[in-house]
């Protein structure tokens, strides 16, 4: 297992490298001369050149990449072109926010959708199944901004039970934070429920049809026990991976939701960076997300291999 994880880790590193290359290339696409964008129209060409030189953006691309990435791995993310302040202090709170939101959404959606999926599987073909599957399908289908808006209307303005902005007032306690994050988290739940539930359902059905489940039943084990001990253990394995793959989206892909709830997540940061051509912010931000995502994947791998003896003993026979 150790070597399995080592392999995964190595792969993650390679992937990370690829990400950095991709994002750097994409950033190069952004039009306009950095110095000009930053100094504005009235600056003289000469001062612009000086600025660019100071930034080193007049060097060949690969040199820039090298210096950027080498700084990055040393934990130096450089500073924002737009705000002219170090990046990390900007990104960190946003990242923390994103993680908080993701966490809340997670706590909501994972149990819910797994429950739904398993239930649907157990009631395969019956009404409950159809209902769960179709609701999930529909919820997933509705673009996040639509569901978000509706949630705001209902809970924020009609009943006034939940705050419509996700940012808890500074200094407020844990539960207040949660309260503030509830609406966006619910919106996310809507988006993800169908997807995860679907996977859980498929996995459970597969396990239900498996021979070993038959064996268990023929042993005369009570249904509930069979489901717990034999079916779920195998059926939820794939779901773990599925959930992990959503981390990227949960952390950095919430541009729309964050906009609607004016939540200062890393998605917003990157979005503004992109639209304001804040190259450094964009590059480092995306890389940070990638790191979080890959970490999540690694954790999933570990979980997976812990729960799945086949992998745990890979090579050991």
């Amino acid at each position: 297992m150790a070597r399995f994880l080592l392999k995964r880790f190595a792969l993650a590193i390679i992937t990370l490298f690829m990400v950095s290359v991709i994002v750097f290339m994409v950033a190069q696409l952004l039009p306009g001369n950095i110095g000009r964008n930053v100094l504005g129209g009235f600056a003289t060409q000469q001062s612009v050149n000086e600025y660019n030189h100071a930034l080193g953006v007049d060097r060949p691309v690969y040199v820039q990449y090298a210096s950027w990435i080498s700084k990055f791995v040393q934990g130096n993310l450089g500073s924002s072109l737009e705000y002219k302040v170090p990046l990390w202090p900007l990104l960190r709170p946003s990242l923390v926010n994103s993680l908080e939101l993701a966490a809340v959404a997670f706590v909501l959606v994972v149990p819910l959708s797994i429950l739904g999926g398993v239930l649907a599987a157990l009631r395969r073909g019956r009404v409950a199944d159809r209902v769960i599957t179709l609701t999930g399908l529909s919820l997933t289908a509705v673009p996040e901004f639509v569901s978000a808006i509706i949630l705001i209307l209902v809970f924020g303005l009609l009943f006034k039970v939940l705050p419509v902005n996700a940012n808890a007032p500074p200094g407020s306690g844990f539960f207040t934070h949660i309260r503030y994050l509830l609406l966006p988290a619910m919106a996310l739940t809507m988006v993800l429920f169908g997807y995860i539930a679907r996977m859980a359902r498929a996995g459970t059905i597969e396990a239900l049809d498996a021979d070993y489940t038959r064996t268990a039943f023929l042993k005369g084990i009570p249904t509930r026990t069979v489901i717990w001990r034999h079916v779920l253990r195998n059926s939820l394995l794939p779901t773990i991976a599925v959930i992990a793959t959503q981390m990227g989206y949960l952390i950095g892909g919430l541009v729309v939701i964050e906009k609607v709830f004016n939540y200062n997540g890393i998605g917003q940061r990157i979005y503004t960076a992109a639209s304001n051509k804040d190259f450094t912010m964009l590059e480092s931000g995306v890389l940070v997300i990638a790191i979080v995502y890959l970490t999540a994947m690694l954790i999933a791998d570990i979980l997976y291999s812990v729960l799945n003896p086949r992998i745990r003993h890979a090579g050991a026979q």
Partner: protein
Amino acid sequence: MSSAIVLPDVVPTRVRPHARRETLRLLLRSKTFVVGSAIFSWWVFCAFFGFAIAPHDPTGITPSTLVGPSWHHLFGTDTLGEDVFSRVLAGARSILTIAPLATALAIVAGTTLGLLTGYMRGAVDDIVSRMTEALLAIPLIVLAITIVVAIGHSTAAIVIVVGVLFTPLVARTVRAAVLAERELDYVPAARLRGERAPYIMFVEILPNVTGPIIVEATVRLGYAVFTIAGLSFLGLGVQPPTPDWAADISNNYNLLESGTYWWTVLFGALAIASLVIAINLIADGITQVLER
């Protein structure tokens, strides 16, 4: 015993009707598929004739702004006095041109890539797989936004961006299918006939992976709509006054908070939802039939 009766091979043969027709029949039995395609075809119809059948000029600005739903204005009017009903009908066009084009692009490119990597394996495969992994590590919308901001949000740009970003995802699915296929003996059998790689990939394997590809295509289409709507909600969509569901929502959703004026948003939202749901229903139906 030369007097042996040699029975000719006359037995009730199990020649079922043509496979493809069979599949179609099954599809038509599947409720989800039928409902889905019904809704979907309605929107396709609107994409073609929406402007024609719209009761009012979808881009006709009138002084009667924000009028609630009525017989004259079924879905009411928006802040510019444009008829929402007409805009919803006509709005199908923009999304139903961009999304399918993007998907088509992704499918064609992705399938080729998937076949190559799945059949050839080796270095190409590794590199592409890493690439895919890398792309998955970056939230798609973020990449999309960045590139669109970079190259400007023309229709072509969005089609290409979404298409390209979806390509590796499609490739991954196809690759998986191909990996399973290449283990089957008809592949070595072909090689033992002296067939060349391209023939094996496109003539032997491709027809056997159409199932997953079709499913993927429908699923992707759903995500394409989702993504493109998101972009256009963020203001990276078509130019006004061209009617566009997501854009109209994003222009009007601030009205909701007043409690009134819900009609300026609701119908667009329903339109998007119904379209994506329809697509998912179709995908669901196809999956069930193909994977039975």
